[in-house]
């Protein structure tokens, strides 16, 4: 597609349930990033993929969070046993290559707003 697509756009789940968030990056973009944003604030890095491998997963808050990427394309972020503090907007971004000064920057999706009740 022309842009980064995320689904669902909104998700309300009960505490303790598992959720899966999907990101479909721009075709040909090898780098894919997941960020979390709470209450319209700055972005918190979660994980970075280069192709199908994740060289940096240092931002994942706990072992309840995991992510995978298949075929160098679609990525899924899974949160197990959701907690209320997981409520946030989860943003996915992709870029042609990892960050470079001449890089046109990340292209972000519109995010998935997750609410844990």
């Amino acid at each position, binding site marked *: 597609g022309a842009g980064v697509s995320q689904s669902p756009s909104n998700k309300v789940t009960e505490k303790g349930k598992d959720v899966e968030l999907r990101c479909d990056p721009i075709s040909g973009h090898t780098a894919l990033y997941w960020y979390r944003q709470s209450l*319209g604030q*700055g972005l918190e890095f979660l994980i*970075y993929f280069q192709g199908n491998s994740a060289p940096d997963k240092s931002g994942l808050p706990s072992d309840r969070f995991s992510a995978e990427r298949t075929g160098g394309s679609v990525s899924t972020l899974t949160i197990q046993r959701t907690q209320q503090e997981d409520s946030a907007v989860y943003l996915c971004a992709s870029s042609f290559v990892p960050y470079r000064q001449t890089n046109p920057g990340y292209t972000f999706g519109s995010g998935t707003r997750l609410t844990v009740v």
Partner: protein
Amino acid sequence: TQLLEQSPQFLSIQEGENLTVYCNSSSVFSSLQWYRQEPGEGPVLLVTVVTGGEVKKLKRLTFQFGDARKDSSLHITAAQPGDTGLYLCAGPLRGYQKVTFGTGTKLQVIP
């Protein structure tokens, strides 16, 4: 620890006024980017500044990178309601392949 601190955190101004948003760090960045995010959307890249002391203009927006490459500013002249949004600075740490984002400045321009 937040590597990129932005100020002010919130700003509400009347249409036609000028404003400046600041992005500061104790770390040196090889480059800094500015993004604008509107409600319900992801951030959109506005500009990348690369050279210390560099000034870039984008219509009514002027971006400056500090000489020491530790800070940047965004100046908006004659703000318009369409400028409303969350402004984020971002930059890579040396040797990192990911971008770290600032704390954000939420701007509201009142018609």
